[in-house]
């Protein structure tokens, strides 16, 4: 009886601690930011959001993240395909290198880009010689986003390609379809869910990215100031309500994306 009683108290204590931890760490902060953005009512919220610098920063972020995501779809699909389907020297090395952007601090990633393409580097001088400015301009932001989101599409399509039923592909060849035809009507549909969910994760990571971008972007308001850097600036200049208002816009967008991804995945596992 005594041990049973103690066991019950223990498990009750455990449950409450874990749930409290969850609520305090995750739920409370997110509710806090939504309430803070409206802390002074709708009008200041609307003013913060409709500040041209704010919505320009958000639009710029969405635009550049979309470009990085589209590049990622092509590069990622190709690399995912090559790494699963072909056997060649160095394959497993490249396959482990894919995760490097996840393991590397984003500030270090930003510094790398700065060192390679910055004003004093060989590549930077070459490019500015032909009139292309990279660092402190939009291309550098896209490169930074591309770097940090590089693994998403690859890692999303690799398992699909591995699981894929070879016989479908062989049947297609047997029936006389060309390589291109087989790819479009048999292989591509198998990869599509992976490409989509990988791309959406890459996009939401892209609009959230701060470290790599802050180092290379130059952060000129209205031109190369992206949303997360704008939010950081608002916090620094002691305007938490304005920072929270822009954060809410970004967060709502990211939550919508995350929710869509989990719906897609739920549908796939249900099938």
């Amino acid at each position, binding site marked *: 009886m005594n041990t049973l009683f103690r066991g019950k108290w223990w498990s009750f204590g455990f449950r409450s601690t874990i749930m409290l*931890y969850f609520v305090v760490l995750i739920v409370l902060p997110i509710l806090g930011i939504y309430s803070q953005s409206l802390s002074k009512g709708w009008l200041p919220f609307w003013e913060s959001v409709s500040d041209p610098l704010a919505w320009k920063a958000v639009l710029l972020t969405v635009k550049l993240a979309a470009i990085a995501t589209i590049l990622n779809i092509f590069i990622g699909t190709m690399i995912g395909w090559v790494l699963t389907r072909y056997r060649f020297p160095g394959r497993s090395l490249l396959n482990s290198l894919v995760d490097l952007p996840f393991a590397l601090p984003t500030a270090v990633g930003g510094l790398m880009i700065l060192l390679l393409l910055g004003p004093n580097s060989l590549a930077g001088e070459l490019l500015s010689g032909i009139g292309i400015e990279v660092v402190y301009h939009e291309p550098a932001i896209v490169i930074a986003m591309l770097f940090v989101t590089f693994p998403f599409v690859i890692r999303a399509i690799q398992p699909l390609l591995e699981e894929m039923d070879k016989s479908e592909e062989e049947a297609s060849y047997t029936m006389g379809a060309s390589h291109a035809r087989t790819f479009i009507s048999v292989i591509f549909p198998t990869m599509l869910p992976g490409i989509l969910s990988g791309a959406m994760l890459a996009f939401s990571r892209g609009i959230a990215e701060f*470290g790599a971008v802050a180092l290379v972007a130059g952060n000129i308001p209205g031109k190369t100031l992206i949303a997360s850097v704008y939010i950081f600036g608002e916090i620094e200049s002691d305007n938490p309500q304005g920072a929270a208002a822009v954060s809410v816009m*970004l967060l709502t967008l990211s939550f919508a994306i995350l929710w869509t991804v989990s719906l897609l995945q739920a549908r796939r596992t249900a099938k």
Partner: protein
Amino acid sequence: MRKVWIALTYLVFTLLLIIPLIKIFSGSWANGWSGFVEAVTRPQSLHALMMTGIIVIVVTALNTIFGIMLALYLVRADWLGAKMKRLLGSMVDLPFAVSPVIGGLMIVLIFGPNTVLGALFEGAGIKIVYALPGMIIATLFVTFPLMVREVMPVLGEIGSQQEEAASTLGAYSWYTFWKVTWPSIRWGVIYGVVLTVARSLGEFGAVLVVSGNIMNKTQTATTLVYQDVENFNVVAANGIALILAAFSVGLLLMMEWAKKRKEVH
């Protein structure tokens, strides 16, 4: 055709990953060995590396314990309804969708000096924001999903039959956990630990906002890199970055190793 694709793959890897990595390693020697040593042994560098070390250790320990427990509850607990479990399960991923800067802002808004909670802790003599506790909370927030997401699928896969059998046979719950559950989730947990270490080592945005980036007090290795770059001290930034990059490459190797073991179980 196949050769072209393989060549293109090599090209992308070289341009996007290999050359930058080499550049970090070679750039630190721009002023010779002494330049590197000088950059790393500056008092603020040593302090920043120590802060990063403390954060990594504390966050990894807490995140591992709470992550495993929460995963167990979300998969196994009967006292949570199925709907509640699904709702909580979908909330686990939320930190992935939150920009690190926003994560930091959230912590400041809740525990900042002008808030109820912040004032309460301040009264008790504990400073949270612009101090180590806030930085740890921010990093915990960011790394939260990593462990839960690694352990939950494994628990779901192995099912609860063996555990039930063990407890029917009269084993205590701790005993059941160590002898039955742990061996099967072990590699998932190790993979989660490696991911958590990597993420907490490299966390920048959230920590920058919460810490205030005060030199020799709340500066971490990544925020020091940022400050050095802002001060146009690129060689010094490179020295710290090299240390971080070396750790990351080591972690990457461990990730590969843990992933292989995880697949075999």
